[in-house]
């Protein structure tokens, strides 16, 4: 009955390959839609993101056609506004963010020595969500109802009054859809990096790219929630008339800007850090010297992450905030140059101390240095408040932001593309087309955007669709447009180059760059299982000799160099030390993620077309599918420690305390708590800053409010007791029923409170924010009920036991969080009347 005590002896590399491929392979034909493998999904994300880069790039070209001559007649104002809005929104939300996720999904497991990502079905679901959300945006463009308020959607221009059509809803729903997929990727990236490295790879031995992605993903967890909240609030205002941003009803237009840039500024670093990780990986390989200042770089990127959350106001220097406050943000924005400079000089020192080889990717690294340094310098200029008063919202800023994102993202990404091309396609890059393509892109880019600095200083504001001859901008704009065409030709050549190499490129030999990281310790292109056996790391993860370790791994001489029960097995390790602590059995290919994403898309589309019942029904199906999808995951019986090779045995993931879902929930709650904090911030911000607030507010029903908190506490307590009961081999069901009952009670109390709110949520921001605070509690109680339902079903199905109790621990954590956040939310709602009285009425 039990698995064999010792793994079978090593076999030939080829036999092992066949056995593992049979288990790990994705199907063919339509079955590909069921694939959950990280290499497959990673490639899909990158290909989709690249497609949207092309679309967004073409939109950018259209703006250059319009502006090439004065009084351009190429597009009318309405079309132009859609085009520039979608250029920005697509580049950022549909290209940059998904692309970095795709790179992470594809590379991280290979680089860290794992066979797949932590939650393969979630990876697939997040990809489909991204694809469908992006398709909604693309469809709106084709139908001519695309968002047209600028990619940062300032209120009240984006509110119902001034954008009555569906355009703004497309942005809010589509982008939120994509953002939620980004959040799930972030959770997965964090958990995978922390728990799924090769044994022996302690955190301080982790390849530097792992550190960059860890910090990036943690930043995503904290940066996206404010935007998601802002989008929800604005959509509530547009769909149901809750006035959060309407100054005539106690809202405030600037609340949107604070929430948006609280996301938007860190987002620049979220885009930059993964690519800086690429540079920190590539430069040592080509300099033939290990990276200078590994520890200093880790400190620098952590510092950068923290600083980036403290400088969002530098996008708002002209809104009329007191100068002293601006001084703080100005200094902060300048200080962020320090961790950037630390990395720049670490890279320069690596090159200066090494014996650099000037191969193809180094061309793009040169492009990075040239472009990014200029973008950084203009960034410091814009951090100086008085200069920003002139340059803000002018073409100077357009030039600056393109230098930053192209330098921070596009050039390193193309370096990465040529570097990892052999891994992706198994073919080696040739310089014949690649070098001219680089120079066209490089020269075209600089021609386009360098002159824009001057265009801006000569007074040209952004987002205008035309200008006069006597404005003096004609020659400069024509130069920019010519440069844009040169750049486009360069990108066209790059695409041709890629297609040619895909078809006719020379087969690459293993480890073509003599690299130093694990992703090269596998056949090219990599098999679905990555590693036939998982290596033990006894040196730094950035100083490997993949060419040497690969044959032994292929023969199965590492860990898990065998197959067992047809399971897709990989190893989980202790977070910091890298000691193996669990065998992770991953799920098989399934259509569930696709069906789930289709239902989610139906819910979003229903909302978009104001078919709220349909939308709610689809959301119900999504919830049911989540519960159903959880049904068959895990193992149906206790196994105890399983041998993993080299005389070691560890329990399967179902029987450990630090299971992946546990950590996933912990990090998801970090994001959730950030959203809640933003909501509390928003409430207090409106209380202090918004115009048109009343002198008093009738207090909500104290009994109901206290009752809701007590109910949440009872539910949390009952969840605790049910876990105790399960561990003591007693029946936990009675306690779970009590928890469910308490949650129902809480929802009833909270909904009654919302119904009785004064001022009415549609009449004043005061009522609207109170209703969202209360709604937050109801939503958490509702999700708590889903947790309990899933627990009951899985208990009955035999998926849960005294040893396999992760399910109940998740429920306990969720209900603990709900109780704490619920108490704070109710406390704030109860405090609102006295807060309002404290400040008094204002017009």
């Amino acid at each position, binding site marked *: 009955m039990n698995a064999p005590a010792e793994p079978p002896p090593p076999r030939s590399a080829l036999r092992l390959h066949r056995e593992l491929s049979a288990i790990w392979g994705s199907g063919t034909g339509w079955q590909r839609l069921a694939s959950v493998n990280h290499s497959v999904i990673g490639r899909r994300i990158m290909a989709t993101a690249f497609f949207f880069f092309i679309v967004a790039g073409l939109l950018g070209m259209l703006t250059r056609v319009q502006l090439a001559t004065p009084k351009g007649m190429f597009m009318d104002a309405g079309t132009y506004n859609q085009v520039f809005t979608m250029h920005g929104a697509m580049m950022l939300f549909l290209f940059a963010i998904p692309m970095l996720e795709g790179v992470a999904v594809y590379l991280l497991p290979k680089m860290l020595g794992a066979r797949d990502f932590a939650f393969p079905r979630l990876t697939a679901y997040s990809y489909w969500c991204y694809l469908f959300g992006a398709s909604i945006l693309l469809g709106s463009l084709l139908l001519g109802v695309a968002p047209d308020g600028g990619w940062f959607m300032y209120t009240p221009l984006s509110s119902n009054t001034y954008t009555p059509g569906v355009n703004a809803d497309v942005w809010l729903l589509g982008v939120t859809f994509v953002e939620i997929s980004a959040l799930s990727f972030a959770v997965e990236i964090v958990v995978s990096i922390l728990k799924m490295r090769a044994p022996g790879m302690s955190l301080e031995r982790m390849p530097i790219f792992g550190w960059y992605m860890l910090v990036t993903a943690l930043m995503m967890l904290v940066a996206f929630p404010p935007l998601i909240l802002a989008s929800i609030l604005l959509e509530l205002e547009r769909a149901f008339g809750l006035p959060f941003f309407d100054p005539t009803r106690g809202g405030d237009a600037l609340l949107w800007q604070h929430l948006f840039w609280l996301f938007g500024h860190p987002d620049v670093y979220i885009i930059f850090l993964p690519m800086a990780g690429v540079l920190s990986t590539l430069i040592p390989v080509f300099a033939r010297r290990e990276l200078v*200042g590994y520890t200093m770089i880790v400190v620098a990127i952590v510092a950068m992450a923290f600083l980036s959350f403290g400088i969002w106001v530098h996008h708002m220097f002209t809104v009329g905030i007191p100068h002293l406050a601006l001084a703080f943000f100005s200094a902060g924005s300048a200080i962020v*140059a320090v961790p950037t400079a630390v*990395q720049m000089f670490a890279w320069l020192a690596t090159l200066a101390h090494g014996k650099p080889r000037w191969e193809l990717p180094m061309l793009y690294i040169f492009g990075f240095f040239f472009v990014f340094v200029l973008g950084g310098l203009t960034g410091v200029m814009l951090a100086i408040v008085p200069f920003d008063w*002139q340059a803000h919202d002018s073409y100077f800023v357009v030039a600056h932001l393109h230098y930053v994102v192209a330098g921070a993202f596009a050039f390193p990404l193309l370096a990465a593309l040529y570097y990892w091309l052999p891994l992706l396609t198994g073919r080696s890059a040739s310089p014949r087309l690649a070098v001219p393509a680089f120079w066209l892109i490089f020269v075209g880019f600089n021609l386009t955007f360098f002159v824009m600095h001057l265009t801006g*200083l000569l*007074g040209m504001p952004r987002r205008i669709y*035309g200008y006069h001859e006597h404005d003096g901008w004609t020659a400069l704009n024509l130069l920019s447009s010519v440069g844009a065409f040169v750049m486009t030709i360069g990108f066209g050549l790059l695409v041709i180059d890629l297609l040619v190499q895909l078809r006719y490129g020379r087969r690459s030999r293993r480890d073509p760059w003599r690299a130093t990281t694990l992703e090269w310790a596998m056949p090219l292109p990599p098999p679905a299982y990555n590693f036939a056996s998982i290596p033990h790391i006894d040196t730094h993860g950035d100083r490997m000799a993949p060419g040497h370790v690969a044959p032994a791994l292929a023969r199965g001489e590492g860990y898990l160099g065998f197959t067992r029960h047809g399971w897709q097995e990989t190893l989980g390790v202790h977070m910091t030390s890298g000691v193996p602590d669990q065998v992770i059995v991953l799920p098989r290919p399934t259509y569930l993620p696709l069906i789930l994403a289709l239902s989610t898309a139906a819910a979003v589309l229903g909302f978009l077309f104001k078919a709220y019942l349909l939308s709610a029904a689809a959301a119900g199906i999504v919830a049911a599918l989540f519960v159903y999808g959880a049904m068959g995951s895990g193992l149906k019986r206790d196994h105890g420690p399983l041998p993993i090779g080299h005389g070691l045995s560890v329990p399967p993931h179902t029987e450990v305390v630090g299971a992946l879902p546990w950590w996933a929930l912990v990090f998801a709650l970090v994001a959730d708590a950030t959203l809640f904090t933003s909501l509390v911030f928003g409430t207090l911000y409106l209380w202090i800053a918004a115009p048109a607030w009343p002198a008093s507010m009738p207090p909500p029903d104290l009994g109901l409010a206290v009752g809701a908190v007590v109910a949440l506490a009872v539910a949390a307590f009952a969840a605790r007791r049910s876990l105790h009961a399960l561990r003591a081999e007693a029946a936990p069901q009675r306690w779970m029923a009590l928890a469910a009952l308490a949650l129902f009670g809480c929802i009833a109390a909270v909904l009654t409170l919302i119904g009785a709110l004064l001022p009415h949520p549609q009449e004043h921001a005061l009522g609207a924010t109170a209703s969202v605070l209360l709604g937050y509690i109801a939503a958490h109680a509702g999700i708590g009920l889903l947790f309990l339902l899933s627990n009951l079903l899985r208990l009955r199905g035999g998926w849960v036991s005294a040893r396999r109790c992760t399910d109940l621990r998740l429920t306990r954590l969720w209900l603990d969080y709900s109780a704490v956040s619920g108490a704070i939310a109710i406390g704030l709602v109860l405090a609102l009347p006295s807060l309002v009285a404290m400040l008094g009425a204002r017009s």
Partner: protein
Amino acid sequence: MSLLVLTGCSGQLSTLDPSGPAAASIARLWWVMLAGSMVLFVLVMGLFALAWLRPGFGSSVPPQRWVLLGGLALPAVVLIPLVGYGLAAGERLLPLPFMTPPRIEVQAERWRWTFRYPDQGGLATEGVLHLPAGTPVDIVVSSRDVIHSLWIPRLAGKIDVIPGRINTLRLQADAPGRYQGQCAEFCGQEHTRMRFDVVVHAQADYAAALSAVAPRPESKQ
């Protein structure tokens, strides 16, 4: 530099052709920062070029020192004086309360500008802002609909015009003449056309010139 201003930087909306103390101070800031940036850019790209042309050139300086010098010392030397200078310059441009210059109330609306002159008997003009030369003026802005931004590049930086809020920009035009202003914050369909003229009069002629062009507020109702 002045030659450059005359040839490449002139234009009715050019921030590099200032005609008031605020714009002049910011233009000066720009030229200083441009010079400093060019030095830094040449430094970084020079180091990169040396790594290519003279391999191993930097090995005499220990790696840690590279990072400390370039990553900490260099930014400190550049940024501390720059931020300090920027703050001092910004402070001088603020509408501080110890003086109360004449007010002009600006109302922005999609897609036009209305200017009211409370110190001139409540006269109002639409699409043309009349200013006295050589004296500071407080421009008090408010919006009737969405966010706009008032920007007269040759006179001063911009100030956002936000519904539900009132912002103030202090500016001064040095010499009589015609200037241009525009909306700098995207405000919908015809944002591009939301421009206005600025006419600066000699102080002595200001009141007369204004009442000659502006209808009385009663006649406008």
